[in-house]
């Protein structure tokens, strides 16, 4: 089925290319008779296909992301957590952030695997490198490599903006709480009216 779909796309593109090639060059504005105004508008729109969004992106490259979805007033964390504060590194119940319950491979995980004790406004990777919260996808990607790859390509998660140009990525954390990442159920919008009720 996949092969067929690819073929379809290829055949479709071939057909289109043929059409384009066999036709005398025409002013796109002229076809719809938009005149100078239309042509100018067309020129302003992204006429060339997309800038490559993914290929060969080095692991450290930054992706334009929507802001991290912090609760109000919690960031910067360094308002309360100062460098040099004494930190209890033994896993324990954290009373202050009571709404945070780890349900994410919690038997093998503790807060400071991701958060940095000395630089609380950052996260750290397994090798200790510090990263910003705007790069938290790199943290997730350490264990969810294939998902991260799909995310970069725009397959997993969501990109908004322009299909042919500048895009904004939603951080993994915008959809999955890092602490209990299962996607939360939503209330659906109302069902359509039944045909017989439409007047």
């Amino acid at each position, binding site marked *: *089925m*996949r092969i*067929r*779909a690819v*073929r*379809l*796309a290829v*055949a*479709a*593109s*071939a*057909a*289109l290319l043929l059409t*384009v090639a066999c036709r005398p060059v025409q002013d*796109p*504005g*002229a076809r*719809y*008779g*938009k*005149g100078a105004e*239309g042509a100018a*508008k*067309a020129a302003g*729109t*992204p*006429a*060339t*296909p*997309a*800038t*490559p*969004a993914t*290929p060969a992106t080095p692991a450290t490259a930054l992706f334009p992301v929507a802001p991290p979805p912090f609760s109000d007033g919690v960031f910067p964390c360094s308002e309360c957590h100062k460098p040099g504060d004494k930190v209890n590194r033994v896993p324990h119940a954290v009373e202050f952030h009571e709404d945070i319950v780890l349900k994410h491979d919690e038997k093998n995980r503790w807060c400071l695997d991701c958060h940095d004790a000395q630089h609380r406004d950052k996260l750290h990777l397994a090798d200790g490198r510090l990263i910003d919260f705007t790069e938290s996808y790199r943290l997730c990607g350490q264990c969810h490599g294939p998902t991260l790859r*799909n995310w970069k*390509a*725009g*397959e*997993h*998660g*969501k*990109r*908004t*903006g*322009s*299909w*042919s140009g500048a895009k904004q990525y*939603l951080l993994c954390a915008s*959809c999955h709480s890092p602490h209990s990442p299962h996607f939360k*159920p*939503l*209330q*659906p*919008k*109302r*069902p*359509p009216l*039944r045909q017989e009720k*439409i*007047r």
Partner: protein
Amino acid sequence: MIDHAAAPLAIPEPPAKGHTRREALILGLFALAGAALTTGCASDKTALDEYLQKHFKDLSGDELKAVLARMEKKYSEQYGKHVSVSATPPLEGVLFGYALDLSRCIGCRRCVYGCVEENNQSRDPQTHWITVLEMDKEGGVNLQDANAYYDHETVPAPGKFYMPVACQHCENPPCVKVCPVQATWKEKDGIVVIDYNWCIGCRNCIAACPYGARRFNWGTPNIPADELNPVTEYLGNRPRQRGVVEKCSWCIQRTRKGLYPKCVEVCPVGARKFGNLLDPDSEIRYIIENKRVYILKEELNTQPKFFYYYGL
């Protein structure tokens, strides 16, 4: 085994017949012209211009400008705010495609109502371009037993999966073939469009569409003025009138300007993907090349450019 690749998959369009006037209407036209002459009032002039308007593809540059201006004036007066009507041409080197990840969709219907608002669908009587079908995971894709009217506290409901359906923008669209007046056609970028001013409301296309994607305005569409999206396209989301057919246009007013369709932007799970099939770096190509994709009712050879897949 038959090698499908050897056969031309893209069916050539029938030779252009020229856009003959809708003969049944000509009588009415004379009657109207008579009326306009007698009363000589301005609104009749607009109505007359509407009647006399040529097929969209036959309009010259100046004629199109006049048509768009006439519509902008009409809609702006009707809704008490400035409404723009453009006719943005297709982009060169672009063939649009769409993909939807069935393993992520949770049936929340955000897309349905996002679409209604963006594309000025009638609120009452209700028109929805997108239908979200609920099916049993056990049964797989089984359109016969699908339910569009599910109403749960939260979704996804246990044991269910969801399949949103709208226009599949076929490469070989049966709806286009059956239109007796060529009021619907496939554009160069693959979008199947409708000229609401040319549609005679015969609904042949509705019967021909295997996906149930077309909607008929049985009543006068009704949109609260403050909810009308004033950025409109002639072949897309401009207000429609009673007696014409409408359907998804892949947000032609957005996508021809480079934006994602509204449904892609509002989907909370990121199940909806859109892009240029001719661009090897687009997400749509990534999906076709890396995932197992399905098309609906493949056996009909409609060749949809709407692909369903399982991202997991």
